[in-house]
């Protein structure tokens, strides 16, 4: 069915100018020891180098991350300097929606006509997350200290509950069965390892050697450390933390970066490794559901997206979701009457972890690459974010 209105008719993602690091689990790699912003910027420069895009092509840099990092005050301009291209930019943060929101903002920047090539650089380091100290005069303790990752996962200030509680709530609301959720998780892992064996991951993921202060190689980031192949029996044996939620059906924190470019259609053709592939933004939307029901938010956003575009789920060729809980995909399948086996064919955050900022960026890159392999079509990307938010976007690979 033809789309009535394209959200950003001028903006394109040049095929193949993207890249992501592997996402090693937190505290498990040298990324736990670096300024992740600097790492990400240097890594993006290298990605562009590998993709034969001179960094001088960049007009603007939109960065996205959610966990404070050293010198965060300087944000995008500083990271642009670390990348080696002194361009202006801005920083964006919206929990796990950050990656997709940053891409949308980049597209809007191009669409506005103010810039021709905008870089999107997303990253996060969940390892050793910083602790903030906040003077709170009305609080009992007068001063509150907060460990950014751990304490925020454990406490949603809007509901007073831990984030994991929303997964159990959603499972109960949708009457999900543990058996199905375990099978879904197993299937997601099998999809990832199948894509890995087929060499798909190497198209989007770039290994990086990380240097110590003396310039010696401290380690190599060349695998999604933390991803582990489960068995159904093993999954079933795991203790249930909440309804349908076990260690095997939820993601783990990790560290990493992912980047891509957004450009005018002319520039995209010039920079693309395959100029015949045209990647357009069709639509994007966000939705917010009831308190502590975050896993259903993406499905709500997708429904809204389909309604606005006039497309049906059957029109979509690639569906990728950020699924910190396997429950997310099960809910989506029920809501959209969609076979969850067909989603996330090359991997997802349930398997390779969740560094927050770059999660949806990596998913988007994987989705676009998968679609290009299939000869094009619509790519649907969705994810949940803190605050019971769902975000979804449609792109067309032609």
């Amino acid at each position, binding site marked *: 069915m033809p789309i009535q209105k394209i959200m950003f008719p001028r903006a394109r993602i040049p095929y193949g100018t993207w890249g992501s690091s592997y996402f090693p689990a937190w505290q498990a790699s040298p990324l736990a020891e670096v300024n992740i912003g600097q*790492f990400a910027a*240097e890594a993006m*420069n*290298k990605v562009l180098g590998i993709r034969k895009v001179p960094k001088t092509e960049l007009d603007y840099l939109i960065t996205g991350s959610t966990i404070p990092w050293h010198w965060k005050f300087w944000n995008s301009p500083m990271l642009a300097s670390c990348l080696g291209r002194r361009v202006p930019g801005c920083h964006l943060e919206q929990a796990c929606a950050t990656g997709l929101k940053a891409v949308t903002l980049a597209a809007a920047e191009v669409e506005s006509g103010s810039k021709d090539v905008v870089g999107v650089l997303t990253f996060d380091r969940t390892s050793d997350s910083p602790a903030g100290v906040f003077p709170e005069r009305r609080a009992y303790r007068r001063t509150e200290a907060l460990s950014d990752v751990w304490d925020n996962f454990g406490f949603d200030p809007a509901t007073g509950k831990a984030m994991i509680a929303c997964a159990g709530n959603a499972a109960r609301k949708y009457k999900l069965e543990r058996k199905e959720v375990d099978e879904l998780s197993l299937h997601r892992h099998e999809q990832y390892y199948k894509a890995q064996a087929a060499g798909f991951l190497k198209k989007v993921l770039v290994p990086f*050697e990380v*240097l110590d*202060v003396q310039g010696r190689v401290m380690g190599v980031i060349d695998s999604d450390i933390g991803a582990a192949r489960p068995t159904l029996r093993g999954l079933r044996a795991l203790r249930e933390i909440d309804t349908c939620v076990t260690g095997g059906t939820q993601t783990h924190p990790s560290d990493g970066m992912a980047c891509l470019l957004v450009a005018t259609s002319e520039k995209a053709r010039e920079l693309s490794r395959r100029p015949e592939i045209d990647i357009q933004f069709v639509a994007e939307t966000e939705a917010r559901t009831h308190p502590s029901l975050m896993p259903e938010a993406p499905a709500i956003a997708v429904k809204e997206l389909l309604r606005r575009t006039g497309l049906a789920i059957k029109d979509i060729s690639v569906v990728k979701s950020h699924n910190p809980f396997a429950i997310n995909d099960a809910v989506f399948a029920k809501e959209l009457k969609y076979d969850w086996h067909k989603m996330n064919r090359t991997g997802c955050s349930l398997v390779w972890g969740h560094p927050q900022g770059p999660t949806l960026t990596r998913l988007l890159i994987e989705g676009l690459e998968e679609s290009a392999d299939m000869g094009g079509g619509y790519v649907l990307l969705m994810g949940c974010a803190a605050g019971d938010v769902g975000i979804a976007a449609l792109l067309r690979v032609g």
Partner: protein
Amino acid sequence: MTISTISAISAMRQSTLQTLGLGTALEIFRNGRLPASARDLVDEVFGKVGDRGALVISGANGIVGAGKAMQLGSRLEPFGVPILALDFPGASDGMGRHYPGLAKTFGREGAARIMENIIRMSYNGLCLPQQLKGLKPRFLLEAIPEILDAKKAHYKLFRSAFPELEIRSVTSGFPSSELGVGIAHPAFPHEISKIWEMVESNPSSLIPHPSPIPRLFWALGMIPVPVSDNWSFVLDVLFCGATLAALRYHQASNMPYWKIDKYFRKLLGANPFRAHDAIGAKGANFLTWSCLHHLKRQYGALFEPNADLNERKDTGQEYYPLNHFRPLVNWSFGRDEEEDFKIRILGPLFQMTSLILHEKRSHLAHVNAIGELCAQFRRGILAVIRGAGYEAAMKIVKDYHKLHPQAKKCWYPEAFEQIGTPEWQQLYVNAEHNGRAGIITVSRESYNSDVDAELNRAIDWLAGENIERVIITGDFHLSTQMVGADTADFYPALSDVKEGLRISGDWSRTARRLHDDFKVSVGFIGGKRCFGGFLELLMHCHYLVSVEEAGLGMPEVTLPVVPGMEGCHWPFRKTAPEKWPGLLRLLLSGSPVRAKEAVGRLVDYAGPIDKCLQTAWKIVTGADHNVARRKVKEAALKKLPKDLALPDSENNAVEAGRKAIFECIQASCAATSSEALLIQAKHSAGFMASPACRTGRIGAELKKTMEV
């Protein structure tokens, strides 16, 4: 090879000394004295005592001015030539920063004396200080910023006050024809580097200069290098050209500067970005931009500064990240990428070299040496091109033109067609003779495979000319000392014993030719020191003559390596047993001795320079000389000292080297001379591939330079 004949002296090629009007090395020996005296030339330039004038350095607090105020100040102070250091009133104290280094070199009293001889003056750029006239300026070294109009106005100001004043500009780019004065362009670091590119009023590099300035600089112990009057001369075509090539690679690949530097160093030895930061990014980027900007106007896109350099020229930004942003992400090459890198770096450099040759900008040995002595090249650019060979060099430039077609203008491939001539083939070693005696001069301070090959060709040439008597020496110009083997040549031997055997065997066989192929051979040490491989080489001569204060040593143990050119047995075979403990100590401690303390052990004669020149000439010409020839014992030596007689070193590597050298001495001396060559080579090669050597200084250099 062709033979040129100059003043009844035949030579493989022109001596570089001749470009300074200083004659040939053979004439130096024949005349028994050096061809120019500092005292005479100081008198000529600054006036005789009683009428002594001053040297003015304008821009004396800048990087160049301050460095040269120290260097020239220290050399002219003994002659009573005051240095007038001129700068703007608000200029920061560039000279004061050098005081600690000066005190370290000359002692506190010496440094104070030098600084007292420097008279600081401020001026506003529009009129000269009144006091200047009373100090009789005779020579102005202009070191003000690279702004043509400002420089010209500056000369006009001085010329109107002092019409007879000798003026030289330190400009790195403007030719003499633009400035209206001669050029004395020094190389960084200015307080240390002795190299000066010089353009005189008769700007043909191959004609002796009537001006006393280059000869004065030579006599003061510096290395003046005549160059022709073209934009950026030689050094800055190479240095700025190398930087531009690296910048363009950065633009094409995004590779960070620090990593490009590492690959550049692996390829050629230099690290252009670090050099800019070390010199001072703001000034250095401006100078590089200025040279390239003018070269581009003359020669086109080959030299066009890119956007990155334009920006850095304005901002003064450094290339290396600040300490708190030390790089996190490593970069490395695949084979194809390394090939691409080579094309993008060597292509433009080779083409720029073709321009230098086409315009005859300098003697080929100069062009080559400038890269090594001033631009950190491991091998001079001509040696690199020669090593690549004509076909490969042409292909690299053609491949570069595919990547940068606009650069095709000013490519002179015919310049490389001369690659087989002696000028190309004898970049480091020259030979001259007068029909009876020959002189071999080596213009490289460290011995490497290029020198070895050229030395063999020089020996062959002299043999072909029926010369049986020879002196081998430094060249009195580009090489002011002999520091030993170029350890970069050992890198392959650290992982391959066969390579070590080849190097040690080949070099030893070359050294033996000095003993076996001539009726009389004289090694001559005229510089400050002669160490390691060069000392081993010269010890093979029938006689070794050295200036008395020269330091002689075998520092191999400190690296550690085992001497590979027969140093472990040859001197023992020439020396009486009672002097063996001294030889053993020399080899096992690595500490040098003065030549005058080593007569009969390492050298056969030591004295002042003139006496040495005369003695060497007498020996080689068969005149009476009273220097006994020490014969080499062919048979195995007996009763060598078995005790190291040295306290244990705290350094494990040194201790391992000492043990290996001791074993080599024992084994090679216990054999006949004929057998010993191979025995020593085996010991040397075996040790080079050992963990002690790989973890020592050469291993560290290898790691730093080649394992990128």
